[in-house]
């Protein structure tokens, strides 16, 4: 990589860009409607700025609401359900990186969730590690698992990838079911939590979960907007065109897969702490399917959408508890109705430009 062609902040404009900027009005191909076009693009920019402002407030508001929940209602039931929902949100934003941003259909995402929960559970129950200390190991385990599965499978496209990841998800679950080391069908129990910090234990765990999940949502959203996030979308839209732009599509897909694995793994730690006992059925295919459903229902590649989708999937069955045995039927019908009327998801991703800080907003082209 030669320095000259490296785009770095504060560099002098290259010869190309100076040539571009030194253009005269006559050599711009369509000299028509410049004023009109720039005016309309300015209103579009203003609109986008207000939109992103709104969503920024929305994000902050949601985070504050999540953190304040125990102050509003501290019943054990509410806290229990809320922790479940938050963990589900984390899984959904993690899978959103793989499926939403990068377009890789992963039907075995619960595998990473299981790897996180089991790694953390094993280290804490068998070796007496404090739960926090297991997190770095979980991250490494998730990365290794991502490399092992991603290595051979990411060369495959669409359908094939879905089948292989589906198989992988089952392999992990069945392995855990058959090893003595992982407790077999009984699983692991007596997993400690992170400590109570002088609070009621479940509320302490709630706040820890909330902080981790809020950070996860923020980071996944930011990753999606940065350089790697754009590369993920390029790969999703057209792999060959991305490759022709110098993007190593295989590495980019790997990055998405591993980022998703890490999110899933950390969610697994939270799950282990929350449940205190884990067993193979906790990580069956239904989980992978439900997480995927949250992503699709909310709106692929849209962070607010995916969060809302995850909250719906995890909370609706609880809210429908009054309907007793009918609740899963109603739940299923509601999902069908949403997908019929909002096939793009509840809050679909809308393309736009990020707000620019400080520096001049783009003026007209004159």
């Amino acid at each position, binding site marked *: 990589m030669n320095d000259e062609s*490296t*785009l770095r902040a504060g560099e002098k404009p290259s010869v190309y860009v100076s*040539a571009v900027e030194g253009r005269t009005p006559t050599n711009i*191909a369509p000299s028509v409607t410049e004023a009109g076009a720039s005016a309309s693009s300015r209103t579009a920019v203003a609109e986008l700025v207000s939109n992103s402002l709104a969503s920024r407030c929305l994000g902050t508001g949601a985070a504050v609401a999540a953190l304040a929940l125990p102050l509003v209602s501290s019943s054990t039931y509410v806290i229990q359900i809320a922790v479940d929902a938050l963990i589900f949100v984390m899984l959904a934003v993690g899978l959103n990186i793989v499926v939403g941003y990068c377009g890789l259909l992963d039907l075995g995402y619960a595998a990473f969730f299981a790897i996180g929960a089991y790694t953390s559970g094993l280290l804490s129950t068998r070796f007496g590690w404090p739960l926090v200390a297991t997190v770095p190991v979980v991250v490494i385990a998730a990365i290794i698992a991502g490399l092992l599965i991603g290595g051979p499978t990411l060369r495959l496209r669409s359908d094939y990838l879905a089948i292989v990841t589906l198989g992988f998800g089952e392999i992990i679950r069945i392995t855990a079911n058959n090893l003595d080391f992982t407790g077999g069908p009984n699983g692991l129990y007596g997993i400690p939590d992170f400590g109570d910090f002088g609070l009621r234990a479940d509320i302490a765990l709630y706040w820890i979960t909330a902080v981790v999940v809020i950070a996860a949502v923020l980071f996944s959203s*930011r990753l999606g907007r940065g350089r790697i996030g*754009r590369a993920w979308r*390029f790969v999703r839209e057209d792999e060959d065109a991305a490759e022709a*732009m110098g993007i190593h599509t295989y590495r980019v897909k790997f990055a998405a897969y591993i980022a998703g694995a890490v999110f899933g793994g950390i969610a697994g730690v939270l799950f282990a702490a929350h449940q205190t006992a884990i067993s193979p059925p906790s990580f069956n295919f239904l989980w992978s399917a439900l997480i995927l459903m949250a992503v699709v229902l909310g709106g692929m590649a849209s962070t607010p959408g995916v969060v809302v989708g995850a909250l719906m999937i995890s909370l609706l069955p609880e809210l429908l508890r009054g309907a007793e045995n009918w609740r899963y039927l109603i739940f299923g019908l509601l999902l069908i109705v949403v997908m019929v009327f909002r096939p793009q998801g509840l809050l679909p991703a809308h393309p736009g430009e990020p707000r620019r800080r400080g520096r001049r907003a783009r003026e007209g082209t004159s």
Partner: protein
Amino acid sequence: MSKLLLDVRGMAVSFGGVRAVDGLTFSVHEGEVLSVIGPNGAGKTSAFNCITGFYKPSAGSVSFDGTDITGKRPAVIAASGIARTFQNLRLFGDLTVLDNVRAGMHVRIRQNFLDAMLHTPRYRRGEDTAADEAHAWLDFVGMEYDRTAQIRNLPYGEQRRVEIARALARRPRMLLLDEPAAGLNHGEKEQLLGLMRRIAALGIAVVLIEHDMGLVMEVSERIVVLSYGKEIAEGTPAAIRSNPAVIEAYLGVEDEEPHAEAERIASETGSRGTAGVES
């Protein structure tokens, strides 16, 4: 003559029994505008795909700026300074115009996961610079529509422009344009001609596959003619226009008429034999 940039020697690729490219040899020099023409199925796009790494040539070699790039990955070849457009637009349909152009800058933006997650100053500066450059390239190609719109909603001609802007944002030393005028109206073709001249003026070599002969004759310094995967002629537009082998390839030789016509034209313009007919 200026420095040799692209050197293709004896390149071949087959699909089943069809030799799409059959021992093709040609070269591109720095900053020149070269057209590759030939009847449908002559192997022009296949040749492009071999050069840019989308097909692996079964024989021959491709070197760019003195480095052998035969059979390398498309991403590696692109990073070495070759950008291309596609015969059927290959844009990132769901993304904005600006994001499409940013794809070309991807390899030059320095930013890691942490920069993106924490929005470090480096992230902000890099993103701002990239946005400025994307706007500059869109100005350059004359794309004046809403640049924050999804590209799929733009008129076809504008999409063509954006695809060229995206390739230019790669800051290539050589740009391969695969039928850039296809589907454009007369006015848009005029603008494309101007754009290609401005690209050449930046010192970027332009290799053009095109069926619009008016455009080809107007813009090219040299023309390479393919037929059945082989080069049948190479030379200046004037020489190619009157080359009997070229006329034969385009019109066929079933009856005497076209051939006789070709010879008549050739003898009239007196340029017969100057076109450097090969193989």
